[in-house]
């Protein structure tokens, strides 16, 4: 492997930094975590828009430094996004949603070690969302999660709070302790109502997507991210109905 020696040199450098003057050695599991942290940062750079295609050899340390800077940037972005959504965040009386967002995320921001262990997600992110948070880890997973919560809150704020809680109550009597997505349950009601109201216009998945598209155009200024998110939820609901 072309990079293997450079990678080990980088590992030695990071491990020495981690140990500081306290220790000259560290256990394998910690060493493995440091190595995973290095690879996480390199992947962060490779998967970013800033990654440049070069023909020449780029020192691994440079890739790592660029990736580490991106991780730090993402932590800041997550913090800003969280601070923005928490102002008018509503848990709709669902404990799992409240605990994950109000208790979990601040703990993550408090304890996340982006210098040495950026791959650690720390949280289990129990509240289920419709952005894929399981395929990634660290700040990538938490950022996606907070983003999903932002989109859900944007959608739900377009409706009356009591209407949402009523829909939850009807779908899941013990809704306060459920570990299910609030948005999914409510969107199911919205789609159900639309089917009842306009039988002819809502006969296929395509029709429902049209209906959601017009709703987002009309009520949410054509928010494309929100539309994509609602399509994901709708896809899940539709496949279940089928």
């Amino acid at each position, binding site marked *: 492997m072309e990079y293997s*020696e450079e990678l*080990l040199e980088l*590992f*030695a450098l990071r*491990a*020495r930094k981690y*140990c500081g*003057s*306290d*220790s*000259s*050695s*560290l*256990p*394998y*599991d*910690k*060493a493995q975590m440091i*190595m995973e942290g290095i690879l996480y940062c390199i992947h962060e750079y490779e998967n970013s828009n800033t990654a440049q295609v070069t023909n020449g050899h780029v020192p691994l340390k440079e890739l790592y430094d660029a990736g580490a800077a991106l991780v730090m940037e993402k932590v800041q972005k997550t913090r800003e996004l969280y601070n923005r959504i928490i102002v008018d965040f509503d848990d709709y009386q669902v404990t799992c949603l409240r605990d994950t967002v109000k208790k979990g995320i601040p703990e993550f921001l408090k304890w996340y070690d982006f210098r040495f262990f950026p791959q650690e997600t720390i949280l289990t992110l129990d509240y289920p969302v419709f952005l894929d948070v399981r395929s990634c880890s660290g700040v990538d997973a938490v950022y996606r999660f907070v983003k999903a919560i932002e989109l859900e809150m944007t959608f739900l704020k377009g409706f009356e709070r009591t209407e949402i809680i009523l829909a939850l109550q009807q779908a899941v009597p013990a809704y306060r302790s459920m570990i299910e997505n609030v948005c999914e349950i409510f969107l199911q009601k919205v789609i159900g109502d639309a089917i009842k109201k306009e039988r002819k216009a809502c006969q296929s998945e395509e029709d429902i997507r049209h209906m959601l598209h017009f709703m987002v155009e009309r009520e949410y200024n054509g928010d494309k991210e929100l539309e994509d998110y609602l399509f994901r939820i709708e896809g899940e609901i539709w496949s279940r109905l089928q």
Partner: protein
Amino acid sequence: MEQNHFLETINRQATLAALEKSNAYTAAYGLQLTREDMEVLLQEKNNTLRAQRRVEVGASILPKLVMIFSDSPYLTQENLLETLLRLQEDFFLFKNEMEDEITDDELLQFMKEQFDGVCYGDLEYLEGTCLEIFAQAIRAGYQDYQEDEGSGAFPHLDIVPRWDRGLYLATLEELLL
């Protein structure tokens, strides 16, 4: 572990050079490590690291170990290599046993103080009693040793009765009866 061999290689020359230097210091106590001794120490250190599933990433602990223990009254040219081998093995073993809660310097300080003190140079007593008790205390959250970097910690934890006047008289009485 592939990375271990790489790190061993890059550390090797630096460690040998540091050990050569430490010879100049230990000469004052009549102790000298031959090149062969150094090679044995290095080889055994790498074996111990593998056995204890650890990676050495900074400057090797060996030269420091040699320097700290060199003024011990229980270290002679005759037992030098054998003792150093045991001490470095204990060092990595107890670094793990103490879950890395203690720094290198604190652990070395503690080992040296007990080796010269209550152990009277007995390595088995150092390993089986002093370090064992200390490791248990550290795992249970004991932190007072940090104030003096591992110095003077053992008397607070020692559960073994020492030969003070009371104990001496009690034992004498027992023997006479």
